[in-house]
């Protein structure tokens, strides 16, 4: 039995709360659509299975085939912990948060913006499906952060923000110039044990949550769950967080697509100087973008890299009609990896396809001819990085040539009969692991 006055107050409070949420969402450009029913329909799973599995995995654990080649790693949906939210720290994201991330994508990661690629209704459906993968969404409700008064992006605000940057010790992770270099802490793991980098604050086009001051403010206010980036609620006032957001936005450098020829010359000279100053970092960049780990890491039957075996070799490649070439162990292990190879031997393999024992590799699939266009400095950087890859003892068997009659018969089919003789990549590790590295 409630008194009428109390009912009115509850109703009024509900209306005001709804209005506040709508105002926040409208300010952020979201459709103020009603919360969708929590029941995932079959459409959501169908969309997920056709568009999300390659990275997030068939069970949503963030362990899809491509997962281990991506930095940051894809989200594990089964935990229900999300980085990009407009909700209190530790709280669940709203439907609009999730829909926004799917629509816009997460810049600086492999998550593309799906808006326009798949129908909006499919995006809504897949978000409901993703929510059903974690029990948290059934048990808890998101706690949206209320509207806040923006501080105009003036030089004074940015100057105050610089003081907040110092007071909150942002430089410890992001560096004095905000670019990450020179930071005290440079290697991070997220809560999922995956490597991550502190954001380079001068490159807002890589900000997952968006480049606008309002987006940046929200990251300070909400924190980035699962990473060392906390919520600053309590340690800074709302106005200070807006000043900081304006300061961070002011750190934006020009991207190359806005530079003049002279600026590009300077930019590339500085980039080359940075590479020369830190060859291991340059080598790591090259090893990753040249896709070395894709073949030099064994994979399971779903083509997922076997965890803990990065660059340990053992992916079996049957290169018909020639024979079987398992990929080499590129880790620094002395017995089974490159530990006992000289720099010149490693560089000769990369650029000429000649192995340590003098035998030759085919000109594919390892494209050593293309890698020979790398500068000497870049080759040295690759070697310097490979020397730092922790040893994994994985003894990869030597190449085996196909039996002569099989070889000749396949060549005959291929050359005289015009038959297609495909090569095959196999799952599993052709190498033998020993010791306790795994």
């Amino acid at each position, binding site marked *: 039995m409630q008194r009428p006055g109390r009912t009115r107050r509850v109703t009024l409070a509900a209306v005001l709360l709804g209005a506040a949420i709508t105002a926040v969402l409208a300010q952020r450009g979201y459709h103020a659509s009603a919360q969708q029913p929590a029941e995932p329909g079959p459409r959501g799973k169908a969309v997920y299975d056709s*568009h999300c599995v*390659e990275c997030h995995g068939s069970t949503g654990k963030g362990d899809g*085939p*491509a997962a281990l*080649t991506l*930095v940051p790693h894809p989200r594990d949906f089964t935990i229900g912990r999300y980085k990009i939210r407009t909700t209190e720290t530790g709280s669940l994201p709203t439907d609009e948060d999730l829909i926004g991330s799917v629509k816009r*994508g997460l810049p600086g990661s*492999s998550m*593309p913006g799906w808006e326009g*690629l*798949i129908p909006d209704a499919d995006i809504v459906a897949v978000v409901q499906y993703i929510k059903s993968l974690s029990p948290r969404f059934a048990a808890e409700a998101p706690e949206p952060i209320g509207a806040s008064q923006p501080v105009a992006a003036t030089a004074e605000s940015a100057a105050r923000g610089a003081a907040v940057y110092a007071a909150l010790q942002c430089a410890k992770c992001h560096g004095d110039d905000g670019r990450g270099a020179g930071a005290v802490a440079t290697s991070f793991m997220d809560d999922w044990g995956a490597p991550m980098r502190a954001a380079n604050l001068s*490159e807002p*086009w*890589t900000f997952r949550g968006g480049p606008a001051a309002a987006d940046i403010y929200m990251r300070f206010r909400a924190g980035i769950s699962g990473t060392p980036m906390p919520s600053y609620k309590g340690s800074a006032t709302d106005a200070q967080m807006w000043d900081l957001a304006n300061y961070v936005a002011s750190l934006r450098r020009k*991207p*190359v*697509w806005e*530079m*003049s*020829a002279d600026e*590009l*010359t300077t930019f*590339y000279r500085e980039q080359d100087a940075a590479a020369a100053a830190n060859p291991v970092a340059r080598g790591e960049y*090259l090893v*990753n*973008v*040249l*896709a070395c*780990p*894709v073949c030099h890491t064994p*994979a399971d*039957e779903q*083509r997922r890299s076997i965890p803990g075996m990065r660059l340990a070799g053992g992916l079996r490649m049957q290169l018909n009609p020639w024979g079987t070439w398992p990929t080499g162990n590129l880790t620094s292990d002395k017995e089974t990896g490159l530990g006992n190879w000289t720099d010149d031997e490693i560089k000769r393999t990369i*650029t*000429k396809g000649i192995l340590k024992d003098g035998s*030759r590799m*085919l*000109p*594919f*699939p390892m*494209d*050593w*001819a*293309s*890698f*020979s*266009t790398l500068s000497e400095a870049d080759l040295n950087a690759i070697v310097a990085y490979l020397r730092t890859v922790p040893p994994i003892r994985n003894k990869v068997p030597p190449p085996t040539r196909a039996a*002569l009659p099989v*070889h*000749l018969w396949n*060549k*005959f089919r291929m*050359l005289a009969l*015009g038959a297609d*003789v*495909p*090569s*095959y*990549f196999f*799952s599993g590790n052709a190498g033998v692991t020993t010791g306790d590295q795994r």
Partner: protein
Amino acid sequence: MKTFLKWGGLTLFVLLVVGFGAFLYNIPPVLLIAPETFQANVAKAAPQVDHIADPATRALAARGRTLVMHIGCIGCHATNGDTGPDYSKYLAGGGIKIVSHAGQFVSRNLTPDAETGLARRTDDEVKRVLRSGVFPDGHMVPYTSMPWGSFSQLTEDDRHAIVVYLRNIPAVKHRIPDPVLEPATLPDGAVEGVFGLKDYGIN
């Protein structure tokens, strides 16, 4: 005389068979050609950027050219002629066909041809493939067939330079078949099959 003819003929026959076998064994002569020859062919294959009038575009394209050469896009996006890759059709694709659980993908034409190449795609669409492996119709190429997971680690600056270079190489008309998005049959344990000896383009 008859014996001589018989033995001579037999010897000739054996020599022919052995010779044909040896010929087959060494054709294509990928392990007989010096590595330096492969290196030289690849080094001179990538079109230069000197013709670009705008100096900023030229600087970007030069950086992109270096990246495209280092990464070795040509390793898959070559066009096969009768005796191996035809480097005069740089990055016109069709040189490789990869089959897997995801379907059948032929390396695409990366030249700026209006009908069959990247002139049909916006910069963002090209960058999305390089970052996410997602095509404008929403389909995805496996990261093992086209290593977009690796290319996603390029900086946006470097990714942009690559796109600028691709916009400024000679256009080659070479139509590539659309992907077939149905699982392919593979031998036991195989996760991918790679065809690479013909032109898998259409025309």
